[in-house]
């Protein structure tokens, strides 16, 4: 009810949440609730992490992962948004593609691994293929739902003033779909990260995933967790950035403005 900007730094409660998680992970093995060889306490993971970050391999792998992630995500988002807007605003296209979309979407990207390797070997291309394939659907589906959510009155207003097709997309469809696009982006961002790491893990393309695989094969449990933590941390950072963008671009939207006023 009262002013939203009370707690000063908005990131603080989030940090508290993460700290709680760290504490739980520290305590579980210490209290012998789980075997510390399977889940080492936070402190040991942290030590392993410190070891990792002092190697150049780690930074190199991180760079590779981020690079593949970023490219895959950009391609998927751009393609997903464009396809979504086009398909969503042309009912005929929508009817024609619906079944194909539903058919292709659940095909697991992991099943595409042989195909990817066939085409690109263990190089970046393989990872990208899997990442784009998986992330594309996330964006596409969100945009389709977003386009369907256009307020009929707003849509009619645009039509009555004879907005050009582009004008309608730019000024009506796009702003309405934008919140959905953001959700799609956030979903795609993490799916892309998950797929990048998985592809590296399974195919062996260079990156964090390969490091995780190596750690797993080597029984280096703490190191494995340390690398997992890095992936998770990447997710948190990515989300933080997205949220910031969202607050900027969606200041007019109920979900954002509802939290500032009242």
């Amino acid at each position, binding site marked *: 009810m009262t002013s939203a900007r009370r707690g000063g730094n908005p990131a603080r409660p989030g940090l508290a949440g993460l700290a709680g998680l760290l504490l739980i992970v520290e305590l579980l093995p210490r209290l012998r609730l789980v075997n510390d060889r399977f889940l080492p306490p936070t402190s040991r993971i942290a030590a392993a992490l410190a070891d990792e970050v002092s190697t150049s391999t780690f930074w190199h792998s991180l760079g590779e992962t981020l690079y593949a992630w970023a490219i895959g995500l950009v391609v998927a988002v751009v393609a997903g948004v464009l396809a979504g807007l086009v398909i969503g605003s042309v009912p005929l296209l929508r009817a024609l593609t619906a*079944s194909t979309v*539903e058919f292709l979407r659940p095909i697991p990207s992991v099943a595409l691994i042989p195909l990817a390797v066939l085409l690109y070997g263990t190089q970046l291309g393989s990872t990208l293929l899997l990442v784009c394939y998986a992330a594309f659907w996330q964006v596409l589906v969100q945009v389709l739902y977003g386009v369907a959510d256009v307020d009929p009155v707003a849509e009619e207003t645009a039509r009555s003033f004879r907005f050009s097709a582009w004008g309608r997309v730019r000024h009506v469809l796009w702003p309405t779909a934008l919140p959905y696009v953001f959700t799609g982006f956030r979903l795609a961002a993490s799916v892309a990260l998950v797929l990048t790491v998985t592809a590296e893990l399974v195919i062996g393309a260079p990156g964090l995933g390969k490091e995780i695989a190596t750690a797993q094969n080597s029984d280096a449990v703490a190191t494995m967790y340390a690398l997992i933590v890095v992936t998770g941390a990447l997710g948190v950072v990515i989300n933080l950035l997205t949220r910031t963008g969202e607050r900027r671009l969606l200041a007019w939207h109920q979900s954002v403005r509802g939290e500032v006023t009242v």
Partner: protein
Amino acid sequence: MDVLKKIGSAVALPVLLFAGWFLLSDGSASFYAPPLRQILTAFADTWQPERLRADVAPSLLRLLAGFLVAALIGVGLGVAVGLNRRLRAVLEPVLEFFRAIPPPVLVPVIMLFAGIGDGMKVIVIVFGCVWPILLNTVEGVRAVDSVVLDTARAYGVTGPARLTRVILPSASPQIAAGLRQALSIAIILMVISEMFASSNGLGFAVVQFQRSFAIPEMWSGIILLGLLGFALSLVFRLAERWALRWYEGLRATRRRAG
């Protein structure tokens, strides 16, 4: 008439694509991309009723269990997080943290707690497909019209009724978007989960075909996955139509023009 048209437009593109695939792949010598003709033969040979019962049925059960649990958790947690700003601030980074962890690397950890039975597979599915539901629910709940909320408050529509009669229906279109996305992710994770500690299931079969270099059979498995996904999404679509008929009507009335 209308129904025929709908069916026509639904099958037109797939038929075209399959025809294209059939023609282009005919005579393919590549070991990993065999002609579609061969794949279709393999399909008919492989997916006999007995095999369907042995591999597809258990997969489907895990899938449904995982999807339903994810839906419950996703919507439940999503509503709580969406309604409560402070809870959201506390939980969001933790959730984002877990969201970014690839399920395959978590499988060992999940095995620790859940063993290697169906429970583990269901948890893997839940872990992967809860996110779109959760995110969409949170956003849907946050976007409930302020006048609607005021109306509910003013008329004392509070407590459970506020949830079931106001918040959930209002957010339901977006929740549906999340559920739909989760459904296909659930299928993907079904396959992934069956790659570990498994001895039956559709995913297991596909991986097994791949490992034993039965490539046409592997492709037939992938096609079956696609068909399965399509069938499930059709069921989902029908359910959605029914549950959101108000929304469809609301949108459709104004679409009749031009």
